[in-house]
């Protein structure tokens, strides 16, 4: 390697992190090194070899800067507190139950039980409009929505609990279940939107089944993951 190649390579690597001005200032030391070495009678090639690899040197210099040091300290502090929260705190389990609680409260507030009193409301929506009075039909929509919200919030809690408990027990045997609950969340969200279109459709069944596709995909995905996880010898992570 020639002196010029070395210097250019070092400058290029330094410039990824430092400004031109700072990179040039750092380079000056190495120009000095080559100047002195050549005066001593050494060859450029020899000096390049003895100096070290430009990329490695640049990384050493960059790693020494205060910003990187502070970042390292901060990230290790963040990792330590995350560690504490995930592995040791009891409070986090209770915190993770909050979405489920929100779902339950919303279910009561929006009269989630209403739909189950009149389950056939959903099918043959238009003819049912005649059968039931207005109050009931008006309440059915929000009630159905409340049920979907309950499923969404509940599944969120389940997924988060699955992750945290798997990390704590150091096992991934049950993680395949996440696929099912993720499917539920997406499906229930679709159902919510589908409910908004009910008034204009004759049969809700087709619409709802379409909205539920992610759920069925989730089940299939889950089964695949289950098979993959269990055909290998059980192993802790």
């Amino acid at each position, binding site marked *: 390697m020639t002196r010029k190649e070395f210097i250019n390579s070092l400058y290029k690597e330094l410039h990824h992190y430092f400004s031109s001005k700072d990179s040039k200032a750092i380079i000056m030391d190495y120009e*000095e*090194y080559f100047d002195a070495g050549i005066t001593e009678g050494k060859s450029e090639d020899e000096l390049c070899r003895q100096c*070290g690899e430009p990329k490695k040197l640049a990384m050493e210099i960059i790693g020494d800067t205060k910003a990187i040091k502070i970042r390292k300290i901060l990230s290790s502090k963040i990792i330590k507190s995350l560690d504490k929260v995930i592995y040791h705190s009891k409070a986090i389990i209770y915190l993770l139950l909050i979405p489920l609680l929100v779902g339950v409260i919303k279910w009561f507030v929006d009269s989630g039980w209403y739909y189950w009193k009149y389950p056939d409301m959903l099918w043959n929506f238009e003819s049912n409009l005649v059968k039931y009075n207005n109050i009931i039909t008006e309440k059915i929509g929000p009630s159905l929505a409340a049920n979907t919200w309950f499923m969404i919030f509940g599944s969120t809690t389940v997924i988060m609990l699955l992750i945290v408990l798997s990390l704590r027990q150091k096992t991934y045997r049950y993680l395949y279940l996440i696929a099912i609950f993720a499917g539920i969340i997406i499906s229930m969200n679709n159902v919510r939107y589908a409910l908004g279109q009910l008034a204009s459709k004759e049969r809700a069944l087709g619409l709802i089944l379409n909205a539920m596709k992610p759920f069925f995909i989730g089940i299939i995905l889950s089964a695949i993951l289950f098979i993959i996880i269990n055909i290998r010898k059980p192993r802790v992570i």
Partner: protein
Amino acid sequence: MDAQFKKGVLEMCILYTLAKDEMYGYEIMRIVKNYFPDVYDGTIYTVLRRLASDGYLDFYIGETSDGPKRKYYFITENGNIYLNDNIEQWKSLCSIVQSMGII
């Protein structure tokens, strides 16, 4: 040798050298290479740079006989304190290892 460990000893070596006399980069590197023949020349310069940015060293730009200017490094007050701290730590480490019968 463990990298962190080595860097610490390198620092001490450079500071000790400069505590006796001020020098320019290549001179320092030559002395350090006597004791650490396997260390890359460039690494010595990065340690110099770090010691300077930590305030343990400082430099001035001086002329040379045949033209190009050079950085002449000298140790600072903080550098002396840091050096003495390190020496004390090493002494106590060595006596511990000795008393364990390892060396």
